[in-house]
Every structure is written in C-alpha cells, then in structure tokens.
C-alpha cells in the first residue's frame, strides 16, 4: 500500500483539513519554505483535488466536514493516495471519542467501506504535530526510498526465577494454613 511508481518524480498534493487544530497544517506549509523545501522532490501543493495525486489529511474528521471529505476523496483521479498527518488523523487524537468527530482515518475507512466508496492507499504519519522531517520521512517511506523503522513490536516481561519460586511458596503456605483452619473448624463444629 505505498505511493504508485507513476508519482515517483512528481507528486501533487492536496491539503485537506477536516477540523484539525492547524498545528499540522502550518507544519505542512513549513515543508514548502526554504529550510525543508519539498519542491526539490517534485512535490507541489495544488489548489484543487482534481489536480492532486495525494491527499494530506489532517484532523479527526469532524462530523460537519464529512460530506466534503468524501467528495474530495471521490474527486481525486485513480490511483489515489491518502497520507494521514498527525495523531488526530492517525487515531483521532485527544478527541477520538468526542460526539462530533469520526475519530481519525481508520474510522473513515470503515465508514467508506460500509458505504461502498473507493478506498485510497493510506500512509500514517504520527506526531502532534509531526516534525516537517517526519512528514518527508513518511513520503520517503511511501516511495520505498527508506526502510520503515516503526514496526509492530511485542516485548515480554521476564520474572526472575526466585521471584516465581517465592510466589509459589507463599501460595503453598496460604493453602496449608487454609487447610489447617478448615480442620480446626470441623473440630469445633463436631
């Protein structure tokens, strides 16, 4: 699910703010300014979704913007890419369970599936707001220029040997004292 080969040299990007706090949006504008200058990769910010190849979606997809988000996604010619920028877009951010937001791109994709609408390729760029370099890294991952560092990871907590033995010892001790107490009870009853 990455950016198609067609856009390797020239990626036109449409910025779609679905109710974000606009910290991510000014970092997106920051990409064009001299220090980061994404135009050297051929990335250009365009004014209409029809010219665009990829949507930079920021914000937790506010309920009021929903019709227009769907219209914008439909208006992008195939093949289309959606980059979710910031923790609001990737997982809903602080307002993931608020009454007036959809809760980020994962819920949007579920919503699009339910209504049988086209699903774009998705790339997640977490951060609140993600540094401009993090966004460039996201696009580089999409282009398979760099290896993706962030991988699903499971770490297991190991308990020391004598710890486990201590717990077993204690629970055995408790069981014996319970037995003794039950025998004592039977004795008293009889």
């Amino acid at each position, binding site marked *: *699910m990455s950016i198609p080969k067609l856009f390797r040299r020239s990626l036109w990007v449409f910025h779609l703010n679905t109710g974000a706090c606009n910290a991510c949006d000014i970092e997106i504008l920051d990409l064009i300014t001299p220090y980061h200058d994404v135009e050297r990769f051929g990335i250009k910010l365009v004014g209409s979704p029809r010219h665009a190849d990829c949507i930079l979606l920021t914000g937790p997809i506010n309920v009021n913007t929903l019709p227009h988000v769907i219209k914008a996604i439909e208006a992008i010619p195939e093949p289309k890419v959606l980059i979710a920028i910031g923790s609001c877009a*990737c997982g*809903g951010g602080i307002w993931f369970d608020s009454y007036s937001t959809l809760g980020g791109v994962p819920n949007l994709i579920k919503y699009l599936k339910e209504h049988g609408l086209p699903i774009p390729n998705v790339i*997640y760029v977490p951060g609140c707001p993600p540094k401009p370099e993090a966004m460039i890294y996201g696009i580089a*991952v999409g282009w398979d220029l760099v290896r993706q560092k962030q991988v*699903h*990871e499971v770490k297991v907590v190991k*308990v020391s040997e004598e710890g486990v033995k201590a717990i077993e010892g*204690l629970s055995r001790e408790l069981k014996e004292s319970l037995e003794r107490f039950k025998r004592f009870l039977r004795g008293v009853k009889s």
Partner: protein
Amino acid sequence: MSSVGRLDILKKALGIGVVTRKYPYVRVEPPEGFRGKPIIDPDKCLGCGACAEACPPKAISTEDSQEEGARYVKIFYGRCIFCGMCADVCPANAIELSKEFELASKERNDLYLVIKVPMVKCSVCGKYFTTAPLLLKSLENVPEHLRPIMTVCPECKSKLSSRFTSFARRVGS
C-alpha cells in the same frame, strides 16, 4: 514600480544563499529533552496500568487475557500526543520519551507496541488477578506473616474475610 526596493531584496536574498537542509540524505538530530516516541523498558515495567489511566488521549490500554495468563499493555503511537504524562506517573520509571520522531508506517498494526506481563493465579479460585512483578514489588512493604494473603484475589479475600468474621461472631456469642 519601486525598483530600488526590489534590488535590495534581491541583493539580500542572494547574499544569504541556499539554506535548505538536505533531509533525508542528511541526518537531523532533535535537541536534548525532545519529546519523541515513548518507549517502555520491559525489565522495569510492572504492568500496573498507571500510564493507561493518566494518558489524555487513551493511547495506552491494558488488557488481561485469562487464557494466556498475561496482561497486555498496548501503546498505540497513532493516537499518542507525545505529552509525557505516562513518563511522569510511571511508579517504576519504565517509560521514557526517546528522541525518535520518524514513525511513519504503511500499516496501522505497525503503530502498536505491546508489552506482555505474566500474571499470577489466585491460590483459592485459580483466576489470574494481578501481574507477577507488581505482586513482588508490593510484597516488599508487607510484614512477613501477612505475605501469603497477598496471593489471594480480591473477591476470594473478601469472601474469606466475611467467613472469618461470621465465624468469629458465632464463636463469640
């Protein structure tokens, strides 16, 4: 067409020259104290869930599974806002914010860090009720003779204590 002003702008612009940083070909090092990706150190983590409680966007969640007898502490980096509250409240200082900020990924599943903490069975009903490291840590400040009682889950403990009191009352009367 105030051309004099424009020529000054041109002169100054050319004087400064190109300032673009050639990222990603050049490594960018964030400063000290940068709030990046929170990382849990499995050796120190007790599995107590204090971080899940304090996390404003509920990005950290804990889930006990009785079959595997383990508690899963999951951090979802997609919703994490990198505020550092989890690092502040962790009793064992197991979480600390690294300087890692390149977290882009193509699958949502890659954004999860899962910590598997083994749990302890209750010596009466056999249900898993707390994690092993947490139990060991809390044993330290429990007097010697009371330690065995710590291996009983809260429900059984309340049942036992109620039977004790009813027995004591009967004996007393």
